[in-house]
């Protein structure tokens, strides 16, 4: 096609072209600098001069993120697994313990100097690492990149998040809801006993994992992560809106005390989130479902949302009462995970036979097909999955690494048993690598290409530059 006329530029910018016409215009724009320039300068005229992208969008800083082969402390990046509102997840190899791990690169909080962040990181990581519970994914290590971006080192899991399951299957049965939430409450109980609050519990952070032996399990991920990012306190309101956009970051699961910036957020905030998740599992919608953040906050302020029994009349009364007891103003809320767990078990057992808390049976198709299907889908926990409407480009960003994802995810994984933190090379038994690293690199010139052994152990000083050029 020829150059765009002025009406076509407007049609393109205002989304009035049908798919085939739009495709033709995009093909033309890719090769026509003149039309692209007109488009760019016109788009600029739409808004007043904006702020700096790099400040707003840390991923766009030069050398954004990590690339295969990068050395972060003692971890060598294998490939990118997925990206979402909270950060980017990479599969990596622990070069000391010879096992695969997940590196989660979080957004740096631009308001915090790198040093302050480093100190906070250490403190929070220490707190999070105290939780030794089968339903909590431990953070093995916390590092910081040069720009202050925190990197969490965790187990590489196989499975899917509760978010994915809900998007596909909600509403869930009472039994299945309990199978998922009882272990979650167990994990929360253990964490709360240590004084650690999750603060950002949501279906994205509840992972339905499949272990190496094919067993299913429920894991809470990202304990303490909220404190490492801007997703805490008053900043969370704007962060939820501007950083992640759409509905991913909307504070549906945030307790009123968090949403309105109270400082002494405690374990009850997590219980509010459990209430919202229970509600969503059973009703296929969240109590504060709304078009925008403002309306969510308004509903929180007035505690105005429909009771569970009105939107899901088949829910047993005991369960509806439990949800109502969790979605209350803090002083009236069910105060402990232990009590919530007890009431959940009772509510379910009143309907049917009691469920052993951690003996979970997922559907057979899930057991058989999950490792394969999800591996290719670029699964991983804790990241929002790019929606299908987001782009032709977004999937292709991951497509380069998808064959590797497939290999990693379908390979038997190391045990999920908690590993002492920080792991030490002298005490930890080397585990054979589940997957071989990329072709070994030989470095003829050490001045240009430091060998992995020259990289300081990650735990020595996380605030220092931990990323080494890979070559």
């Amino acid at each position, binding site marked *: 096609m020829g150059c765009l006329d002025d009406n076509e530029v407007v049609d393109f910018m205002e989304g*009035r072209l049908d798919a085939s016409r739009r495709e033709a215009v*995009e093909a033309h724009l890719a090769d026509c600098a003149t039309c692209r320039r007109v488009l760019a300068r016109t788009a600029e005229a739409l808004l007043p001069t904006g702020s700096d992208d790099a400040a707003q969008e840390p991923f766009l800083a030069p050398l954004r993120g990590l690339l295969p082969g990068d050395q972060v402390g003692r971890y060598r990046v294998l490939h990118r697994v997925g*990206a979402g509102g909270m950060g980017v997840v990479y599969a990596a190899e622990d070069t000391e313990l010879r096992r695969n791990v997940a590196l989660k690169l979080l957004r740096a909080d631009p308001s915090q100097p790198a040093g302050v962040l480093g100190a906070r990181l250490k403190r929070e990581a220490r707190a999070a690492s105290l939780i030794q519970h089968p339903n909590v994914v431990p953070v093995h290590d916390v590092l910081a990149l040069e720009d202050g971006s925190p990197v969490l080192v965790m187990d590489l899991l196989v499975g899917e998040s509760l978010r994915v399951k809900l998007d596909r299957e909600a509403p869930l049965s009472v039994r299945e809801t309990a199978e998922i939430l009882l272990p979650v409450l167990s994990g929360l109980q253990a964490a709360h006993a240590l004084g650690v609050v999750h603060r950002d519990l949501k279906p994205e952070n509840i992972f339905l994992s499949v272990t190496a032996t094919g067993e299913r399990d429920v894991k809470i991920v990202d304990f303490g992560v909220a404190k490492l990012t801007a997703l805490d306190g008053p900043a969370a309101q704007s962060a939820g809106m501007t950083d992640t956009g759409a509905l991913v970051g909307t504070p549906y699961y945030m307790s009123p005390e968090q949403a309105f910036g109270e400082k002494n957020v405690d374990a009850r905030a997590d219980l509010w989130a459990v209430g919202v998740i229970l509600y969503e599992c059973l009703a296929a919608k969240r109590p504060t479902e709304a078009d925008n953040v403002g309306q969510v906050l308004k509903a929180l302020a007035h505690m105005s949302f429909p009771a569970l029994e009105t939107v899901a009349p088949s829910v047993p009364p005991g369960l509806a009462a439990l949800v109502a007891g969790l979605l209350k103003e803090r002083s009236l809320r069910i105060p402990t995970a232990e009590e919530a767990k007890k009431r959940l078990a009772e509510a379910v057992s009143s309907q049917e036979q009691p469920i052993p808390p951690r003996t979970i049976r997922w559907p057979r198709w899930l057991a058989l097909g999950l490792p394969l299907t999800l591996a290719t889908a670029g699964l991983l926990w804790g990241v929002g999955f790019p929606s299908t409407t987001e782009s032709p480009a*977004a999937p*292709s960003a991951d497509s*380069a690494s998808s064959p590797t994802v497939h290999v990693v995810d379908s390979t038997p994984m190391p045990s999920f048993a908690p590993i002492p933190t920080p792991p030490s090379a002298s005490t930890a038994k080397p585990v054979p690598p589940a997957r071989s690293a990329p072709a070994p*690199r030989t*470095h003829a010139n050490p001045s240009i*290409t430091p060998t992995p052994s020259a990289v300081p152990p990650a735990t020595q000083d996380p605030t220092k530059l931990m990323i080494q050029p890979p070559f």
Partner: protein
Amino acid sequence: MLLHSLLPVRFTAMAFARATAALQGLWHGLAGACTLPGMDEDDVRQRMSTWRQAWPDVNVEPEKVVEFVRSRLSDTDLEEVHGPDLYLACGCLYGSPSAIEAFDRGFLSHVPDFIRRIDRSEAVAQEVQQILRERLLVGTASSPPRIADYAGRGPLMSWLRVVAVRVALELQRSRKPAVPSDEGQAEGLPATDDPELDYLRVRYGTEFREAFTESLTALDPRQRTILQLYLVDGLNIERIGQVYQVHRATVARWIAGTRDELYDETRRRLREKLHLDAAEFESIVRLVRSQLDVSVRRILEEGATE
């Protein structure tokens, strides 16, 4: 004689035929002029009256407006056209002083805002406004006023924004001195402080350039466009998001993903082209990576000016 006697008759007949044809044409014209697909005359007049309410001082003959609208309805539903804007544009096309005044006051006055990112100076803004006045409202002997090009599918203001930007870019191009070619440009990779890397840069610049250009071509058009809008045209992600109707965070992920893909693909192609030992290869790849954005910008800009 016969001829003479017949002449008046012939003339009379011809005149009659002409008059009839003219009358028929007038009749069809008027009947056609005041109807639009799917609407009778009353509906059309009602619609005109509604459109006119936006510009109470602007008086344009309904027939002219109907004709103006009808010629733009080939691929647009009447319900989707921007009627009041078309009404005003039509008034301007037919030289209605009140329409021109309304256009000048309500639309052309915004032009300085539209072109501020291209040129901030007041003088240029005034010049662009003047050029637009002449092109859009006056026209030339060979072409009608260009406001006739407005299709009415989008708002008149959006259309004017594009036209204004085009004029400002033309003006800028006509005044910009030719940029002398950059010595380092031929290699595709920018110079570095490291003598060893610099040697590699010069030695393998051509191969890098080929690998990079091939990788760029292999991207899909949208990836290439967005990368260029971002790196070459300097459009920020907020605005790219507006153009593509997605959130800025999505654009950020697109760009990051495209950069990764470009880097991986360039690296793969370089490995095929260069038969280097591992250390040398990794050094040049390191250089590619560290300078990726600069290289992208440089090569794409060069392509854009070719």
